[in-house]
């Protein structure tokens, strides 16, 4: 808009419900363009098939302004924290055009080494005006395979502190050589880092175009205006919760050796929400420890889903949510605790928070999800031609039931990872996936039924043995129902006919011809199953989603 109206430009945008909308819509579109570039140019099947990445744009001070529309919920929040660490070590004034930072230190980023964070400054006419950031799960990071049986972070792969990967546009060759030498799949890993850099460049181009087009001379003031509005919306939603403290507790299978007990108190005071994990188990000797960044991210995300799902997220969204966990607890471990499989605990925080808030927010929450934590099966080895492969099955259990709807079967919550094609898995590895089907009776019974889990059957074909890593939780602690709903079916792994004698959170050698049958857990139910609509019970029975026994005995048909 060529302005004939003589108002000062930025003041105009900030106070203008039209101009601010236009700029914000564009910022989100820029984050989405950035994400499209990353996905399209990525090599890791984890990024491109499974959506395990996120892109965020920040103002010059490092406040998140916008993020890609369908990202991994935890990443978007941890990216802000990582950028803040970078700026502490290397103040904004020391960055030059073309500099690109890299880091995967779990305590500074998203809690485990395979996620690489890339940040870069955006310059417009020699002024630093914004930052771009992305985070992506690499195909490999060296160390041991992705597993839960490590004892120190040092076993888990190469740890990259906040460093420059590009210096004024040129690759930091020493660092690149160091990474190349320490990962099993150097080409895809370096290719994915390049894809992240390209994604940042895409966002930078978009930002420069926006700034010039709208005549913006202070992006920071626009960022503050946008964040203030999201903050107000979230504060208003929080204020609707009846004032008070709400508690719940959750037990997990853990390592089997040490207990994993989560205790949470959610307190609403004024327009602020305090989420405190005092009483939670101390850190454990295996890789279930969840660094504070990750604890915080997975505590805030479910609150937003329940209270304010309609607004895009930015730095303002979580400002009034205060998360605390005792130092040295499993939710705030000290370096160098093992953290590789931190999702096994972190994904369960949504369940604890919803359980606590169920009495006051029943309509807006979901029952526990069988897909939290995600159950992962990894197989890694060599093909006949000596090529290395690592196959990860990103299959999901069922989501918990909602107050007025059944839970979604085979759906990731609170994470949001896509399950890729099994045909692709078979084309890239010697695995044969004999079965991937909904598991009858696995959804927790209720007025609304939990989402069904899945039954998956895997064979290692060929004549070469390999390494299997299982990341399995919810065997002894299935996803619980809420307000009278029943639990979903738990997880189960049967290996050549046996369901014990191997680690569910660890690595084992697997021989050619071995078969694994894996049950992905179902979601919990919502409300009393005897109040379930009779037509819905009959439809479930006819489709084989529930058995006759369950229809009769649980639902009273």
């Amino acid at each position: 808009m060529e302005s004939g109206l003589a108002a000062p430009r930025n003041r105009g945008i900030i106070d203008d419900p039209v101009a601010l909308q236009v700029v914000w819509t564009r910022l989100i579109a820029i984050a989405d363009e950035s994400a499209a570039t990353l996905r399209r140019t990525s090599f890791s099947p984890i990024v491109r098939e499974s959506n395990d990445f996120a892109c965020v744009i920040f103002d010059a001070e490092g406040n998140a302004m916008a993020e890609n529309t369908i990202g991994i919920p935890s990443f978007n929040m941890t990216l802000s924290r990582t950028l803040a660490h970078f700026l502490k070590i290397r103040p904004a004034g020391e960055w030059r055009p073309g500099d690109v930072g890299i880091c995967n230190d779990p305590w500074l980023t998203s809690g485990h080494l395979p996620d690489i964070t890339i940040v870069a400054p955006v310059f417009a006419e020699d002024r630093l005006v914004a930052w771009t950031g992305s985070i992506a799960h690499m195909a490999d990071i060296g160390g041991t395979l992705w597993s839960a049986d490590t004892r120190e972070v040092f076993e888990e792969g190469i740890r990259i502190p906040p460093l420059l990967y590009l210096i004024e546009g040129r690759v930091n060759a020493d660092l690149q050589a160091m990474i190349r030498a320490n990962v099993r799949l150097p080409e895809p890993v370096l290719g994915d880092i390049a894809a992240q850099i390209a994604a940042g460049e895409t966002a930078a181009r978009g930002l420069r175009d926006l700034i010039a087009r709208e005549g913006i001379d202070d992006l920071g003031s626009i960022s503050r205006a946008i964040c203030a509005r999201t903050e107000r919306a979230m504060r208003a939603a929080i204020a609707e919760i009846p004032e008070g403290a709400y508690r719940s507790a959750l037990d997990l299978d853990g390592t089997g050796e040490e207990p994993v007990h989560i205790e949470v108190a959610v307190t609403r005071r004024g327009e602020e929400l305090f989420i405190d994990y005092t009483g939670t188990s101390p850190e454990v000797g295996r890789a279930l420890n969840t660094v504070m960044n990750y604890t915080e991210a997975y505590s805030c995300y479910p609150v937003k889903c329940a209270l304010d799902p309609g607004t895009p997220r930015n730095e303002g969204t979580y400002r009034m949510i205060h998360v605390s966990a005792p130092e040295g607890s499993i939710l705030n471990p000290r370096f160098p605790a093992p953290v590789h499989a931190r999702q096994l605990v972190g994904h369960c925080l949504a369940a604890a928070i919803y359980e606590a808030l169920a009495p006051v927010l029943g309509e807006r929450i979901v029952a526990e999800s069988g897909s939290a934590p995600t159950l992962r099966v990894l197989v890694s080895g060599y093909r006949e031609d000596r090529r290395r492969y690592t196959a990860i099955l990103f299959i999901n259990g069922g989501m918990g039931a909602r107050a007025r709807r059944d839970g979604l079967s085979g759906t990731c919550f609170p994470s949001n990872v896509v399950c890729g094609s099994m045909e692709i898995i078979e084309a890239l590895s010697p695995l044969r996936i004999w079965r991937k089907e909904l598991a009858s009776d696995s959804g927790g019974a209720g007025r609304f039924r939990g989402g069904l889990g899945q039954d998956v059957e895997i064979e290692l074909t060929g004549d070469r043995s390999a390494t299997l890593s299982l990341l399995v939780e919810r065997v002894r602690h299935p996803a619980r129902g809420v307000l009278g709903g029943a639990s979903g079916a738990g997880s189960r792994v049967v290996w050549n006919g046996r369901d014990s004698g191997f680690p569910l959170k660890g690595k084992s050698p697997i021989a050619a011809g071995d078969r694994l049958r894996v049950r992905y857990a179902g979601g919990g139910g919502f409300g009393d199953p005897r109040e379930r609509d009779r037509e819905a019970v009959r439809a479930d029975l006819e489709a084989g989603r529930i058995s006759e026994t369950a229809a009769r005995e649980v639902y009273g048909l």
Partner: protein
Amino acid sequence: MTRYLAGADVGGTFTDIVLYDAETRTLSVNKLLTTPDDPRRAIVEGLGALEARAESVVHGTTLVTNALIERRGAAVGLITTEGYRDVLEIGNELRYDTFDLQLERPAPLVDRRLRRPVPERIGADGSVVLALDEPAVHQAAAALRDGGVRSIAIAFFNSYRNPTHELRAKQIVADAHPDLVVCASAEIAPEVREYERFSTAVANAYVAPIALKYLLELERSLGVPLFIMLSDGGITTARTASEQPIALVESGPAAGAMGAAFLARQAGWDDVIGFDMGGTTAKVSLIHGGLPHRSHELEAARLQRFKKGSGLPLRVSTIELIEIGAGGGSIAGVDELGLMRVGPRSSGAVPGPACYGRGGEEPTVTDADLIRGYLAPDRFLGGRMRLDRSRATAALERLGERLGLGLAETAAGMARVVDNNMATAARVHIAESGTDPLRYRMVAFGGAGPVHAYEIARLLNVREVIFPRGAGVASAIGMLVAPRSVEYTRSLIMRLDALDWRAVDDAVAALETRGRAVLREAGVGDDEIAVELSADMRYVGQGFEVTVPLDRTSQSRRDAAAWRRAFDDHYARRFGRSLDMLSVEGVSWRVRVGAPAAVSELRFGELDSRDDEALIERRMAYFEECAGFVEVPVFARARLRAGGTPIAGPALIEEAESTAVIGPSASVVTDAYGNLVMTLSARPRP
């Protein structure tokens, strides 16, 4: 040689019939009300009323897409590999909205009880791991038949590598139940990824019985050969179309894009953004070298129309269109954050914008356009509808009050938000195609397209916009100018540096033979046929492919390096760099067999032969650049003559279907074909 060729486009309100006379190269148009209970009636009637009898008819239809959206297809059964009964229901497991806990997935087109697994297994290398259990296929088919299905899809795991089990099962079912429609996934979409392939096969089986009936009955009642518009902009015989009706899913919109491409090409333009803004949505297509962009994936019947991931995935060769929730009926409001929002909610035809006076109370884009002075209240739709300014004013003032904006500011703000929504979506689309927006010109059509084109062009840095003569019947024109062509695909994953040339030759030859047979049936001589080869390629290890045209002389010279270079160039154009250290592989091979279009030039008769003054009136219109309302001249388009002196903006040019807004930094002329060509003055590029 055919002299009279007709196109028939059935829209929601109007059925457009156009007749082309090959001798005079002129077009006549007949617009009738659509007959929703039986669309054939309007077509037959419209053709009958023309001054000459059409010797063949091309038809674009929304039958298939509507059947999917409204779930009006046939009862369909699925026979699949044991262990994969729930592929359609499980989908890709993604929550397509990050924060919405209440979201739903589209229900599969086949109920679980009608999905029957049978023992069989093909390996990833195409080998038979477990033989097909033929008695189980018999049993499954019989059970499905008893269950009341009218068609059966057969979709087996890894069938893209080796379709023999699927084809055998299809044979068994067809022999036992000749009254059922049967289709195999490897014939419909022979591509890797089970969910997408199964989904496409099932959707095809779902629409096949109704499509077959409709197309054959229509051809019978016409009494002349019937050709059907495919989603990718080609046309084929009714019989071939009915074999793979899912290929018709974008038949209607494809015709519009083909029409726009033709009208632009005729004006001498090759690289064009097609911008079609109607009542509910805006559609943007990219046209390169005179042809609309194609893609091979789309989503049908979304639960949330503008949310990717909420629909049924289809692997179909299609003209790429992005659809934005922005149209004349888009409603403006205040969002959760106190900012103005426009769309995607729409007032639809009923109650429609507030100014229609049919009970609509909420402010829409059309209301804002009226307030801005762009629409004449007494000449809307050629005077068939009177617009009520006072109702539009009231609706906008209610909104303005909540946002602290005056009436003009509210109207201008609504236009600005909706224009930016469209420009942003178009920009993302252009960026994803890896091209520079600066190379494009724009073709604007649809009722609201010419009203908003000026601002969109400014936002995209586009310098020239064409408002084509005949924009009102662009879809029907697209049918006349579409080439007879078909495309067939085969997945064959192979590294270019270790290419099995014989396998490539065999696959390509088989696809070409199949295509030539179809064209021959459509009356195309062998010497007219052109064959184009392309492949979906990627760097080894990547998961997304880009479709790269390949030259066939390299195939005969066994020059894989040339194909590699073609891929690298394409990739670099799209993503900024190529990756020389990595190997490249071909994934799917595509052969398009086509003949040139029958129509290469179109002229319209004069609309208004009176030599009246073109200037109708002067009225006040709002332009942001002029900081408010200014008096502008209003012209009747029908009275503008080719080669006249350019009209400088700001100005408005009215015709029955729309108003072209010529902004202050633009001027417009009429070209020899009756098109309006608007030129925007240069603006420094940011």
